[in-house]
């Protein structure tokens, strides 16, 4: 039908004849083989555990199930081979699938971030490889399986074409190129001296950990357990409760012990940890958004936490865990927050961002947090503040905005209110301007689009 590769749907610039390629005919064998390997591994493990006592009886059932799994995987692979087609030439890269669901994905060459070739064991035996094309934050494309040589040629072509596409317009894009080739130089070249930006003192860290909502919750649980055990008369459970609380506090303090942010040239570095120190490089030009949080109890101590959305953190999964990685200030006073913000965006001046409150009728929707909800637009950033239990200040630079939306639910419609959402790369930071006046919302929307456009043009 009209989605088939032969369809003249491509733009006129494309040469008349396109070479339509398919994955390797051995794809079915590879899928079947991978399923077989998985089944064999499972079987051997069960055998080793002594899980299969009555071998003769279970082995038959198991054998039938295994054969069915392998057969299904093989048939799937066969269909995948027959129904997948891809077109790679100078003008476009397109993948067409016409298994039950038809899909056709066309990749913008300028958006190719990285091309990975993977070879599972069975595929390697058959001389096949799987290609994954990373196009940034959300999603990507998989092609399985190609011959090893074709996969490598494809990667070469995509990377070369990507480099050319990037080089054409004046001033190539700043951030994306860095993830692309394998031979990226390490983050710091060790030439400029390392300057301390901010260090979290043990006192601040202990205070921040002790006076916070999770600590209060943990204390409550531990207290309840303790009370229960005293009533019950057993001393072992009370010991367990204390251990649990101690463990939580230890992991929290230990992870951020000796938290230091330093600057060397353009790169910020964060090192933290008790015993084993974790160090990570952080390039300010890859930071997409910042959130400053303060929970209920932290309002007593006046401490804040700062987290960021960084492009590429999700991929570098080699460090402990992603959530901890996004923290650029575990606990600090407002002055510390400003120091960290200045290190990230030197040009940012929050005092010049005029906070705008919600219209009075938004009290119907946010009766308790009404005073907390404000938003503002600065020269370079959009800022939103909200939160009832946890106060949250969210900052996104105009040039990091991906897309923009306005939402209006039924209640908002009645009150003539609307919410504007500024989308950035996925991460802990998400920016919404809640409950604006409906008339103003559309103007904010259009103005923000224009600011984003101008900021992108200035960067390029």
């Amino acid at each position, binding site marked *: *039908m*009209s*989605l088939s590769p032969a369809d003249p*749907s491509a*733009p006129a610039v494309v040469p008349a004849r396109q070479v339509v390629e398919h994955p390797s005919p051995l794809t079915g064998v590879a899928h079947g083989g991978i399923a077989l390997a998985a089944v064999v591994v499972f079987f051997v493990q069960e055998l080793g555990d002594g899980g299969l006592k009555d071998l003769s009886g279970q082995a038959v059932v198991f054998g039938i199930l295994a054969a069915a799994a392998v057969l299904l995987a093989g048939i799937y692979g066969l269909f995948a081979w027959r129904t997948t087609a891809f077109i790679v030439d100078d003008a*476009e890269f397109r993948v067409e699938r016409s298994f*039950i*669901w*038809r*899909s*056709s*994905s*066309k990749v*913008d*060459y*300028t*958006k190719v971030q990285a091309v990975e070739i993977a070879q599972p064991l069975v595929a390697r035996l058959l001389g096949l490889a799987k290609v994954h094309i990373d*196009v*940034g*934050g*959300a*999603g990507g*494309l998989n092609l399985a399986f190609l011959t090893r040589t074709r996969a490598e040629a494809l990667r070469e072509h995509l990377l070369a074409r990507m480099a050319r*596409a*990037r080089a054409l*317009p004046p001033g190539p*894009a*700043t*951030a*994306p190129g860095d993830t692309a080739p394998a031979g990226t130089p390490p983050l710091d070249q060790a030439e400029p001296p390392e300057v301390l930006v901010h260090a979290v003192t043990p006192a601040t860290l202990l205070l921040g950990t002790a006076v916070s909502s999770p600590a209060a919750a943990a204390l409550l649980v531990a207290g309840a357990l303790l009370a229960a055990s005293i009533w019950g008369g057993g001393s072992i459970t009370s010991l367990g409760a204390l251990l649990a609380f101690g463990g939580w506090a230890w992991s929290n303090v230990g992870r951020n012990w000796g938290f230091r942010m330093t600057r060397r040239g353009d790169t910020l570095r964060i090192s933290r940890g008790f015993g084993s120190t974790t160090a990570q490089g952080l390039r300010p030009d890859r930071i*997409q958004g910042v959130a400053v949080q303060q929970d209920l109890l932290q309002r007593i101590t006046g401490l804040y936490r700062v987290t960021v959305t960084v*492009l590429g953190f999700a991929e570098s999964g080699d460090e402990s865990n992603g959530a901890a990685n996004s923290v650029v200030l575990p606990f600090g006073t407002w002055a510390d927050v400003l120091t960290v913000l200045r290190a990230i965006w030197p040009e940012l001046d929050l005092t010049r961002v005029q906070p705008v409150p919600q219209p009075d009728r938004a009290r119907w929707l946010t009766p308790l947090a009404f005073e907390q909800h404000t938003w503002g637009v600065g020269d370079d950033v959009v800022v939103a503040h909200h939160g009832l239990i946890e106060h949250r200040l969210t900052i996104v630079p105009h040039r990091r905005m*991906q*897309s*923009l*939306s*306005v*939402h*209006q*639910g*039924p209640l908002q*419609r009645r009150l*003539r209110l609307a919410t504007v*959402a500024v*989308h*950035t*790369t*996925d991460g802990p930071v*998400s920016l919404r301007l809640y409950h604006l006046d*409906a*008339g103003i*919302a*559309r103007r904010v*929307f*259009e103005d923000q*689009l224009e600011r984003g*456009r101008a900021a*992108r043009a200035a*960067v*390029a």
Partner: protein
Amino acid sequence: MTEDLFAPPGTAWQRLSPNYLRMKLLLIPLGWTALFVGPAVAAFLVGPPALGWAVVAVWAALLAWRLIRAPRAFRRWGYAERDTDVYLTSGLFHRRLVCVPYGRMQLVQLQSGPLERAFGLATVEMITSSTQGGVTIPGLAQADAAALRDRLIARGETQQAGI
């Protein structure tokens, strides 16, 4: 007032294929019936007949409500291609308007399932590096969808903007 908020951006909204409404009018009864068959049978078997009829009544009411609203919901869909971005609006109950700059699109996909194919429809999906900001335009005629996809990609290449 609200019409103002979701007004088209200079150019008129382009609408979806009328076949999309036909497909919806087929899918809505199927979906709601599938959802209610289990509870209805259970209610008739276990509870008093009144309970069973109550479930059937709820089913009928919901179905009628959805079917009545379907044409209006369909008419709320609209998209507009502009020089630097795409606008999309949708939703009757919960309304929204999204704008994606061409330079932010990472991948453009064209999809059509078996049922969509039967109605000659396809879906165009624009993927940015933010999952909340992607745009999906369903119910386009297949040829229109393919052409739209190619236009989007072509504009994306000339207006690339990093991330």
